[in-house]
């Protein structure tokens, strides 16, 4: 199988990798780049566990072919903390117990970041709709929504 050479910026670093045409960006990130923070919950775009930001847009990486990532700027959960300082969302998820098993957490963090970047003061309903593409089976969402509200508050305060 011919492999395509891809150049991207991932979590701030220029990153190159080889991939086959049919490989999903999720598998390329996990297998080729070694970033396993994004998870596969379904592989069909229905759970959001694989959510990452591609050119600042929240994207299901399981639905995107790896070659499409050429020339893009990607942020995964591994790049969310700023050289060791947790992003307010990460801090609020921790303090608010917004995770149980934690498999959905990377996806929720990325989707919530995309929301707060666009809308720094969302209502509860806006948060619920913005995160409706992310499944969590453990928490019942209550503490996740509260953590995002808390992070929004904190980020506005800065």
């Amino acid at each position, binding site marked *: *199988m011919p492999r395509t050479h891809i150049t991207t910026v991932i979590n701030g670093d220029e990153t190159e990798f080889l991939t*086959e045409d*049919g490989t999903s960006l999720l*598998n390329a990130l*996990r*297998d080729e780049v*070694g*970033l*396993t*923070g*994004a*998870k*596969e*919950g*379904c*592989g*069909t775009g*229905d*759970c959001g*566990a694989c959510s990452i930001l591609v050119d600042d847009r929240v994207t299901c990486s399981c639905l995107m072919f790896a070659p499409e990532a050429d020339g893009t700027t990607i942020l*995964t*959960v*591994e790049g*969310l*903390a700023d050289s060791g300082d*947790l992003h307010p969302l*990460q801090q609020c*998820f*921790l*303090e608010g*117990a917004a*995770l*149980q*098993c*934690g*498999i*959905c*957490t*990377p996806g929720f*963090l990325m989707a919530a970041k995309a929301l707060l970047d666009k809308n720094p003061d969302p209502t509860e*309903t806006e*948060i*619920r*709709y913005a*995160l*409706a*593409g*992310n*499944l*969590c*089976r*453990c*928490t*019942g*969402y*209550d*503490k*996740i*929504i*509260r953590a995002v509200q808390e992070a929004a508050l904190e980020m506005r305060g800065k």
Partner: protein
Amino acid sequence: MAVTEENPGYKWVGTRPIRPDGLEKVTGKARFGADLVLPGMLYGKVVRSPHAHARILSIDTSAAESMEGVKAVITGDDFPDLAANGAHPSDVDVANNTIARDKVLYEGHVVAAVAAITREQAEAAAKAVEVTYEVLPHVLTVDEAMADDAPLLHEGMITKGVDPAPEEPSNIASKILHERGDLEQGFGEADAVVEREFTTKPVHQGYIEPHAAVADSNSDGRANIWCSSQGHFQMRAYTATVLGVSPGTLKVTAAEIGGGFGGKTVIYLEPLAVRPSQRAGRPVKLVMDRDEVFRATGPTSGTRIKVKMGVSKDGKITAAEVWMAYEAGAFAGSPVGAAGMTAIACYDIPNFVVEGYDVVCNKPRVAAYRAPGAPMAAFAVESVLDELARNIEMYAIDIRLANAAVEGTQAAYGPKFPRIGFVETLEAIKDHPNYTTELGPNQGRGVAAGFWFNAGMMSSATVHVNENGTATVVTGSPDIGGSRQSMALMAAEELGIPYESIKPVVADTETVGFNDVTGGSRVTLATGAAVVDACRLIVEDLRARAAKTWDVELDQVEWVDGQAQHVEGAQPPLSLNDLAAKSGRTGGPISANASLNSRGVGAGFSTQLCDVEVDPETGVTRIVRYLTAQDAGRAISPDYVEGQMQGGVVQGIGWALNEEYIHDTEGVMENPSFLDYRMPVASDLPMIDCSIVEVPNPAHPYGVRGVGEVGIVPPMAAVGNAIHDAVNVRMTELPMSPVKVLEALNAHDE
């Protein structure tokens, strides 16, 4: 928060610090089952039956074996024939569910597995395995399976629990029966009697992480396994059985687990990774995709349940008659036993008969799902009780209070209850503002209650004091919902050192003593008790070392706030830090082990209050408000107690309104994706209000009861009762989807 007994001055227990494993999980570092990559690792792929019931005539693996990159292809013949070896029937079932031998019993049943260098090569090879089947007639529901001339799944299945034993085989694996008093007399005393029939569909645990396993075999016959599981000791035992090896040859490490809810207490992939790894001499990784998770891993039973109950005018239940049939899927073992014991366990009922049947059918083998068996029975019983309350014009909470089981009540399943907190959960609901909040148009309010035993079982823990006075707490219970935090909190409390000084670890099967599965809401109770025991041994040891240091008798030394103190203050205190630093002089490193088979399980009760709004045009039910009150015994870690309560409720809401397995007439699952099997998302829900009730379990050092399961028992009835309150139709079929609600509304109007 409702607290019925004050926290007796605990410093750590009952607080809400950040969980020990949290940082790795919010930064993407935590390693789950599918995240592991080993040098030279192969990718596996499983071949599954497209038929619900068929005889395997032949399997031709030659084409697959000759494909590029393929290193191993295995079938059922590559495993020992346990039935022929006279193994225990339940072990034979585990093996035959892992990989079929001569018959496939459901669509998705494994028939072969391959391992190849790349994922793509493995997928191609799996497609190239040629299986020839003779398709057999199938049965999909309890009705079909129990019909007189139903095709049989297992030729030798004679119903257990029937006297005299039937001569003919059937699809009924067993019958259970509980009875007390005189049913006829009981119904004679009733002023109102309601009889209804309910059906529920199989639903899946829906954990977001698919099953995953990596196996690495060595030429000496030993193998290392990493897997996503609720109990790696159990996985080791099952895997050894299926492979026909001694458990000691397998070392199993529990990866971080992405949800289980009971569904990861059984094996699917582990032997199918080990065998090709042995063949190829390389590590093999197997990860299911979502479609496989739905088609081949344990949903919980679909059921048919009939309930007849009577009450007197003053609200006393005089009689209850419950008949239920639970789908087991392809092998015996539905949770009908627990269903029979829990169905009416909330109430003190003088006359009853509870009869249940465990029925096999051509669907995936059911696996445990949160309070296995109890939710469906509660849906039926709590719906009928709601109707009875209406008939005698009594409030739903009050009819439950009038019959509630209390300490000393003889449970329907036999023994008398010790101290329990059911009444307190009912009162917590009544005391909450939601109980009196005004409802809008098309809105309704429903109440329902639930019971779960909780479990104890076996646990081990080791505590090491490090040289700087911090401690490592090692257990073998996979942490599925924050249990490492509970362990650390209890250890901090016992040792008197800060929570942050404790590092809780979940160790592999070779590093800590045996632990039963993380399930049955047992970990905080039983593994917690082992941790407490080990910490107490450490404290004893520390006192002795302080006594030695001071040259005084042991009884002159107390352990207070993390330091040894002389009872008369004759010596300056010695902190854990001081003692640890000088441990070499007082007898060497400080550590202790404790193992136990837990005693003192404390039953759990939950009462829930649900407000819905039903759109009469579309039949769509929206949850407006939701309150859950649950007796935790003692909430060691209130954040994660609430998390369990909220998570259980929302799974129950999904079960109530959307979730179901849909099969076509050929027995093929039609909705094996999250798109078509629709679980609740954030925008479907309000906040889930929690009222933690604390009626301490007298038999546990901290009063713990266990909280993981009972929360899923009441929601289906709470939602159904609320729908009835809103639009005056009684829903008797799950899920209460818009179509069914509309049908009911239309039938009602006619």
